[in-house]
């Protein structure tokens, strides 16, 4: 499948900022089932950009902007060829072993409720157990895009009436780790032709003999050729498309518009 991505992020500041420093994870990498055909990141002001990779193997771009800045738009557009592998991810940069992805982080620490939920799906083969977890999450939660509560934890998301895709992925990751299965957060895109106010997020879990497998609990399915993986880490904090810091007074407002569709 050939997918076209359009992803705009705009920051508006109530006061001019003297300096912006941002860490972007906006470049997808190639895997056996995902080939980046063209990719552009455009920033609408004078900025210095430096490319690198983080410890998880994700492509990173450091963005440095001198002030005064009142507004900045980061526009990402590109095309990616994908094929369906039943969610199995192969051929990506994997500098860290699955064992690392068993540790809990502040965003993925399970509470008693998540532990009990995880125990409820325990059993069967490794892959069956993960599918049960994925479906159980899909069936219990109402998924809703909404203004994100910053740094909302898996436990908070689990207790809420409605959950964002990010929250769903965090709960999946926390529960999988409770079951002793290495799991990680993935940020990226899912093509449905609709406009979204945030990039998509899902989870990957490790199954011996198969490898990393993508699970999207908002769909109750494993990932297929509608998905473009951009970055993976222990949780959203490590895979976030934009981590930013600004020097200046006032407040900021971030708006995101994402469209992913077949081209």
């Amino acid at each position: 499948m050939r997918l076209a991505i359009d992803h705009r992020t705009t920051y508006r500041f109530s006061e001019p900022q003297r300096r912006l420093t941002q860490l972007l994870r906006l470049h997808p990498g190639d895997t056996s089932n995902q080939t980046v055909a063209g990719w552009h990141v455009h920033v609408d002001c004078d900025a210095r950009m430096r490319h690198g990779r983080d410890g998880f193997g994700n492509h990173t771009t450091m963005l440095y902007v001198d002030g005064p800045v009142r507004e900045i738009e980061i526009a990402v557009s590109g095309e990616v060829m994908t094929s369906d592998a039943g969610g199995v991810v192969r051929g990506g940069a994997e500098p860290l072993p699955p064992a690392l992805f068993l540790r809990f982080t502040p965003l993925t620490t399970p509470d008693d409720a998540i532990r009990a939920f995880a125990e409820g799906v325990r059993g069967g083969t490794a892959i069956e157990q993960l599918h049960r977890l994925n479906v159980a999450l899909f069936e219990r939660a109402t998924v809703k895009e909404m203004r994100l509560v910053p740094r909302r934890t898996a436990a908070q998301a689990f207790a809420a009436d409605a959950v964002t895709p990010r929250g769903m992925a965090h709960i999946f990751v926390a529960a999988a780790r409770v079951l002793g299965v290495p799991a990680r957060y993935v940020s990226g895109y899912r093509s449905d032709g609709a406009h979204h106010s945030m990039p998509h997020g899902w989870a990957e879990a490790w199954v011996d003999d198969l490898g990393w497998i993508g699970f999207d609990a908002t769909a109750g399915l494993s990932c297929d050729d509608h998905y473009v993986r951009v970055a993976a880490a222990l949780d959203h904090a490590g895979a976030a498309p934009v981590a930013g810091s600004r020097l200046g007074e006032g407040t900021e407002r971030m708006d995101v518009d994402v469209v992913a569709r077949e081209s």
Partner: protein
Amino acid sequence: MGQRAFDEVRGQGATARPELHALERWIAETPPGELKRRQQSAEATFRQLGITFAVYGESDASERIIPFDIVPRVFLPGEWARLSEGLVQRVEAINAFLKDIYGPRRILAEGVLPADLIFGNPQFRPEIAGLRPPHDVWAHICGIDLVRTGPDDFFVLEDNARTPSGVSYMLENREAMLRLCPELFRNFRVAAVDSYPDRLLETMRSVAPHGRGVNPVCVVLTPGHYNSAYYEHSFLADSMGVELVEAADLVVDDDKVFMRTIGGLVQVDVIYRRVDDDFLDPLVFRPDSMLGVPGLIAAFAAGNVAILNAPGNGIADDKAIYSYMPEIVRFYSGGEAKLPNVETWRCREPEALRYTLDHLEQLVVKLVDGSGGYGMLVGPTASRAEIEAFRAALIAEPHRYIAQPTLALSTVPTLSDAGLAPRHVDFRPFVLTGANGVQVVPGGLTRVALKEGSLVVNSSQGGGTKDSFVLMDEPEPGQSQSQSQSAGGMSQSQGS
């Protein structure tokens, strides 16, 4: 305790070891009132300088000075030479381990360490994996905590490879001794420690990124004046003649680090940071923190700045890793560790837990992630209630604890209210690693448990400090004596 402790002046005997007759004579001939007067004078100076610390958990946050004891502890030349060899070997292994564990991870591939010990350990920072510091040096400044049980019997209690403090005590204690007890420096050829700031600066310059000229810009990064070691941060910056900065004074642009000055931005090449990893770069480590320098890790990853000590070092001095240090040293050096560990039971292992629970009255039990003497049980001096509380904690979370025997820590004569009396000591020497090798500074921080019989030397628990004399060999016949008489004269280097 069982066996009697080794006294560093008298050994196991009733009179001083031959090389230390002069010290015993000095102790005997100087009236206790005079010793007390000098000690008070030294403490008055420390108070004036502001060498204070805050005790955690005390409601009145008043700052205290660490008590100073006027009687020095002395290392003989041969003892020091052998100890130094062990320290060099250990610190080389720590650096090799860090380079490996954030790189190819050979030590795991060869099964020397269990992988979950690394990957499940929060001190292993995945954010740092794959990065290489300039010149491949990770642990530039190490403080290795040792205890002693005999003339050449040293055991490593703890490796400090993150931001070890205490070097200002080594320097200030020496200053005080030179001023208050000059006669000691006439009787003994004491290796100078006052070259420490020069050696530290030399170490910093040696690890500057390539191509930054002969005079790279070095700074000391402090969390600020509320930090309990702020005096040391400013003291070191001052004595090296480099800027003392806080995170807000630094800015990263184009993957390079700059310092704000009145003359504009100046590129910084080497940062001696006394800030924890969590507060280095909010874009990478703690997104909820306003502290730190955004982009610092990107500059480090790009090879444009050296950070002393490197981020991620906590995996090398973690207490859970500590018990594997003999294997780690053997793996990287190819030989047995010259400095042994204290025997350690890892309570995560069922047999070790059983042994620990059966011998709580004899053991020291520590939290794997504790420090400063907090969360620690000293079996022989603990009350029944304390022991039972630890038993419950151990059963609940065994993986959080290790246990060690209570060693008969060496004693040194120390001024007490009842005159001179033996008190237990430990030792933190400082080991510097630059691009050109490893050196041990001839001296260190001696901590002394001032309470009779106490084995806890932590300053937060009623410990004090002493000067640590490293004696040099007598000069060759015919060599000028003048040099040895001045305490600021020769310095000793133990390169590798």
